[in-house]
């Protein structure tokens, strides 16, 4: 089971610019199966059975999301592939495009058709110019083969696909901000409810799914949801792309079943800690991730926190930054806080002002000019970020700083 590869299976073996290569390894067979043998609701049912959940970090059930859009009586519906990916230390989605863009495209077509959408958007981070080109090429090739457009593979299905290039704002990875951005509005989150599944893009029911999530769909269609559910952790099955960086021997992206421990990933996949370096902590889930000390590395990586004896941690985007003792914590604190200060949309008070103040205090800490007053202020800011911000970005911006104070005892 450990060796099962769903997303990375053909990486490096096929030419991403050639649709023939993908067809040669069974590409678009899932789409063919769907068109010839399955009803849209059966696709949704299979995905529900698979237990697949959102790979962007939140881990929401993909099947439920698709189902709620599919069941909406409104005629106009949209499907959006979220390729914003700006979490620091996370670069899995763009590697999917780099290595196998048609897998993603096939997933998008099947997902969009399964919910009854006539139009699908690929929302791509504005900085991913190379990936945009690859996708444009793939979309063109797929159109020639009639995998999308009018009367897909001779059927009654129609679908338009459009790439929408964002401006590279972190907040636009949040689905309501992303939808605002496509509409031409300021990229900032919107109050929920209504959820996008009820009233999303242009007021229509919209499913926004992460690129990695979507890339699992063809496999599920071909092998069945039941088979997928057998992989990895029970409460969030499947494989996941993990991005290991920092003080490991072989940094990179690895596909592994969910429920794997952090230790296994570091030791067995990334070749362990680099020679001469001493492990300090690992940050899981990007700049907004929690920090884990050595004694916590046996925790299993999941999307939902396990109950009972099973020690598990939420993996977020799946990035694991391994930090060794030679790293200057000041640099990291400034890097985290500066990131969130810059990327906050600035609309709500605690996030706009709080992220700025954390950055300011991090700089004073570096310069050894931190006062007790600052330490008190940090407590207040972290509290308000955790409890009162408009969207989760505020909470995210507090996580690592809070762990640095509580677990790493940076104040001493």
């Amino acid at each position: 089971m450990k060796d099962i590869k769903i997303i990375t299976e053909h990486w490096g073996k096929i030419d991403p610019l050639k649709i023939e290569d993908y067809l040669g390894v069974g590409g678009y067979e899932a789409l063919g199966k769907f068109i010839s043998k399955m009803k849209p609701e059966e696709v949704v049912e299979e995905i529900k059975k698979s237990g697949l959940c959102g790979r962007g970090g939140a881990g929401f059930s993909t099947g439920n999301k698709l189902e709620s859009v599919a069941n909406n009586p409104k005629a106009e519906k949209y499907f959006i592939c979220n390729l914003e990916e700006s979490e620091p230390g996370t670069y899995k989605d763009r590697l999917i495009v780099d290595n196998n863009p048609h897998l993603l495209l096939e997933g998008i077509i099947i997902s969009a058709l399964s919910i009854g959408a006539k139009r699908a958007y690929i929302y791509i981070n504005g900085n991913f110019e190379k990936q945009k080109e690859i996708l444009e090429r793939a979309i063109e090739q797929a159109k020639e083969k009639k995998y999308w457009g009018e009367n897909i593979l001779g059927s009654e299905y129609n679908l338009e696909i459009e790439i929408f290039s964002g401006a590279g704002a972190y907040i636009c990875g949040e689905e309501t901000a992303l939808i605002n951005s496509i509409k031409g509005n300021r990229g900032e989150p919107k109050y929920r409810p209504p959820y996008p599944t009820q009233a999303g893009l242009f007021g229509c029911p919209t499913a926004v799914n992460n690129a990695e999530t979507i890339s699992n769909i063809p496999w599920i269609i071909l092998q069945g949801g039941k088979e997928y559910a057998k992989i990895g952790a029970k409460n969030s099955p499947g494989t996941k792309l993990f991005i290991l960086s920092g003080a490991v021997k072989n940094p990179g992206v690895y596909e592994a079943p969910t429920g794997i421990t952090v230790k296994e990933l570091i030791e067995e996949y990334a070749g362990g800690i680099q020679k001469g370096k001493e492990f300090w902590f690992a940050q899981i889930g990007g700049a907004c991730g929690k920090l884990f000390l050595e004694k916590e590395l046996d925790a299993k990586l999941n999307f939902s926190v396990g109950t009972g004896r099973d020690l598990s941690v939420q993996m977020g985007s799946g990035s694991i930054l391994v930090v060794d003792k030679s790293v200057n914590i000041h640099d990291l604190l400034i890097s985290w806080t500066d990131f969130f200060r810059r990327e906050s949309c600035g609309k709500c008070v605690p996030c706009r002002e709080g992220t700025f103040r954390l950055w300011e205090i991090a700089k004073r800490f570096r310069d050894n000019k931190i006062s007790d007053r600052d330490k008190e202020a940090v407590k207040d800011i972290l509290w308000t970020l955790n409890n009162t911000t408009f969207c989760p970005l505020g909470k995210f911006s507090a996580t690592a700083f809070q762990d640095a104070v509580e677990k790493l005892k940076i104040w001493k």
Partner: protein
Amino acid sequence: MEIKINNKIYEAKEGEGIFKVCKNNGIKIPTLCSSKEFQEGLCRICVVEINGKLMTSCNTKVAEGMEIITESENIDKARRINLELLWADHAGKCATCKKNRMCKLQSLAEEYKIENFHFIPRKGEITGQEELDLIRDNWTRVVVENENPCISRNSEFCVECRKCINVCPEKAFGFNHRGSDIVVGTPYEKVLDCSFCGECVRVCPTASLMDQNNYGEIVETLDDLKKFSVAVLDFGIEEKILEQIKIGISPEKDLNKLLINLGFEKIISLSEKDKDNEDEIIKQIKTDYAKQEKINPADIAVFFISSKIYKKKNKNEFLDYVLSEREVARLVRDKEKIKTGKIRL
């Protein structure tokens, strides 16, 4: 439906916001950014506890069986911290501010006893021995624009509540930049060019958007014994002026007395039917009226007191000043201060 607020049962309608239900039942919740028309949940000051979780009351709708608490230790803490963060982004200039005593942020800061001791002010006067580079970081973009004829803009006082952006019928404003650099401005920071309906100035809780005028000159004219100051009151402005000053500026309820106190010698009240020929009536003051009373027109100062601040554009030889209800309130406020010996002009 029935909901519980502070352990008492209240009736609420489907789709109503919690803030509104509380307000209708006399339960006070502070807010900076929400209004009757727009509830965006930006200031995070109207937070209440819903089933134990902190949520903004303005944009959260009631739901069957909801249990809401409007005062608790956590609610107080949230309001204090968020106000303190805002205050530090604003601090410094209350004593000399045009909107002193008429400012929403100031009154909230007073109510919640906010003192800025945690953070270095990002705007305004910076005192103390703080490091220069930190101060430079903290001086974020400030937009000051006094080139348009009607509205004086100074983002130094802005609390980014978005009221002006939402209320503007012409979408003249928007958020520029993001994060802590955010500033309310015009596209490409061009000089404000709109029809100057004045709605943004009306809704601004602080001194960020104010009526454009030459305040010193106005005070001087009113105090000048040689000048004959005439106030032309637009239809319906009386109520608006009294509304402005009743927030503790002056106990006086007789508008004529107030205006005479300010130095006006004659008051003309327009009626509804004068709407279309107000310019004509104003013109008559320096012409027919001056002739009739044998006053040199050069010694007459005509003030049009109106919410139509776009009239400031149309000042001419017959109309010297256009004052809004807010500017009258400011004149009253300063007069009261002089009376009680608090300031000297």
